[in-house]
């Protein structure tokens, strides 16, 4: 049984008298512990799909099955409780947090909301989470805007794993990071995936990162699936027009002599 099974997902928007179909009859699945990437140009619907899966917006049609249950049927307190299993990491870690928050509060919130640890236990849990993502425990009292972008994204990941989710949606989670930090965050994500068996829905416009991180990829074009399959197979030999365009447009670093890596 798939961890996440999405069928015929559709979302329309009304824009100035016209109806724009942002997501058009999209179906896909994610197995436990695997990484499925959604790639495509801007406006292809990948961020919309991420928000639909998280039920931050509601679809116009379609079905979402998560861990064997009808996810769209949940409401109110039941939905909020189920959210512990399905978390998100945003692109801009500065915008993803309350500007007045501290690291401790950001990590305390999910623990408190889902009753994962008692008030006395929480500081220890927070320290453990920070260390799990490679940060020092003394970062807890710092304000979010005081720490670096890479550290902030680690905190975002720590918050996402705090409730023990089986699926994390990452929306351009490394796109805003410095190149030197990107690899470290990807390594962390892979490490977490292998240790905790977390599946990732990884949204990115960067095919290089997709190819490095994902097992499978879906290429989207104007809200529809243009191509899907094994990540390396699709990117190394794209069949669809959008696939070929994306691969051709990706900047290449042509090194005439290869350094042994």
């Amino acid at each position: 049984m798939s961890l996440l099974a999405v069928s015929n997902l559709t979302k329309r928007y009304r824009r100035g008298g016209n109806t724009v179909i942002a997501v058009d009859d999209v179906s896909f699945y994610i197995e436990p512990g695997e990484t499925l990437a959604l790639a495509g140009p801007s406006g292809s619907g990948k961020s919309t799909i991420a928000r639909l899966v998280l039920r931050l917006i509601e679809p116009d049609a379609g079905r979402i099955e998560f861990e064997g249950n009808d996810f769209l049927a949940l409401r109110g307190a039941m939905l909020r409780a189920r959210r512990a299993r399905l978390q998100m990491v945003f692109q801009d870690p500065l915008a993803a947090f309350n500007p007045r928050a501290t690291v401790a509060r950001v990590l305390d919130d999910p623990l408190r909301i889902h009753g994962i640890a008692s008030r006395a236990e929480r500081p220890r849990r927070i320290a453990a989470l920070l260390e799990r993502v490679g940060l020092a425990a003394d970062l807890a009292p710092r304000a979010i805007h005081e720490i670096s972008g890479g550290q902030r994204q680690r905190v975002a990941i720590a918050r996402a794993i705090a409730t023990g989710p089986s699926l994390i949606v990452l929306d351009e989670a490394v796109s805003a990071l410095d190149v030197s930090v990107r690899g470290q965050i990807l390594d962390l994500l892979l490490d977490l995936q292998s240790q905790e068996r977390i599946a990732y829905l990884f949204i990115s416009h960067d095919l290089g990162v997709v190819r490095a991180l994902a097992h499978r990829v879906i290429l989207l074009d104007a809200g529809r699936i243009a191509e899907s399959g094994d990540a390396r197979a699709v990117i190394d030999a794209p069949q669809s027009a959008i696939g070929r365009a994306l691969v051709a447009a990706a900047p290449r670093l042509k090194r005439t002599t290869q350094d042994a890596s």
Partner: protein
Amino acid sequence: MNPLRRFLRTPEAVAGAILLAALIGMALIAPLLFPGDPQAIAGPALLPPFQDWSLPLGTDRLGRDVQAELFHGARTSLAVGLAAAAAALAIGSVVGTLAGFAGGLVDEVLMRVTDAFQTVPSFLLALAFVSVVGPSLGIVVAAIALGTWTGPARIARAEVLSIRERDYVASARAIGMHPLEIAFREVLPNALPPVLAMSSVIVAAAILTEAALSFLGLGDPNRVTWGGMIAEGRAVLRTAPFLSIVPGIALVLTVLGVYLAGEGIVETTAVRRGLS
């Protein structure tokens, strides 16, 4: 840099704080410096200021010590002004946040209520309320708040509408936070700065409204207020203008101090983003 140091570095903040401190000081030491009833007769009537150094600001038509009245009047004016402004800001913030965050029918209903209150000029509303219910300090505070809560409500709602779309609100929903907690813990504190920026204007308006109500004889009759003093001085404006001018200057300084300090607080509490 901690907030206090930042506050002290802003010239407006320091100037405002000094003015307000002086005025609050006046209010606080009034019973010590001028024990007894400020409305008791202290000397000959209509004594001009700076003639008798035991009555440096002179006396009014009934021979009451103007300086004692001024200091005691500070207590009422400041208390009423600050209390009314706090009430208006609190009511306005809550209404605006609920309307902006909930949207839909709740938003419509709350905004129509806000419209209703806003169409009546705030002073007339306060006037009507006090006339009907009767003048006492608490009623005057409530009356002023009734007329001024709509401004903060609209500003809070506008901020909330914008903040609602931000990633950190979506993030809070994604971790399963209850909507009410999101509204009042994540959204409202970040919607406050523009609302607080109005606070100095509202405090000033509240103090002036109280003065106007007292001037019209609708303030608390048992208390000395600057408005009441100006009203009393009206009858002898040509011969003893100082009776109206002195409390008038006090009003101006209070409004100025509140405004400057308010600007300073807004400067200080603005959340700074890093240089990108």
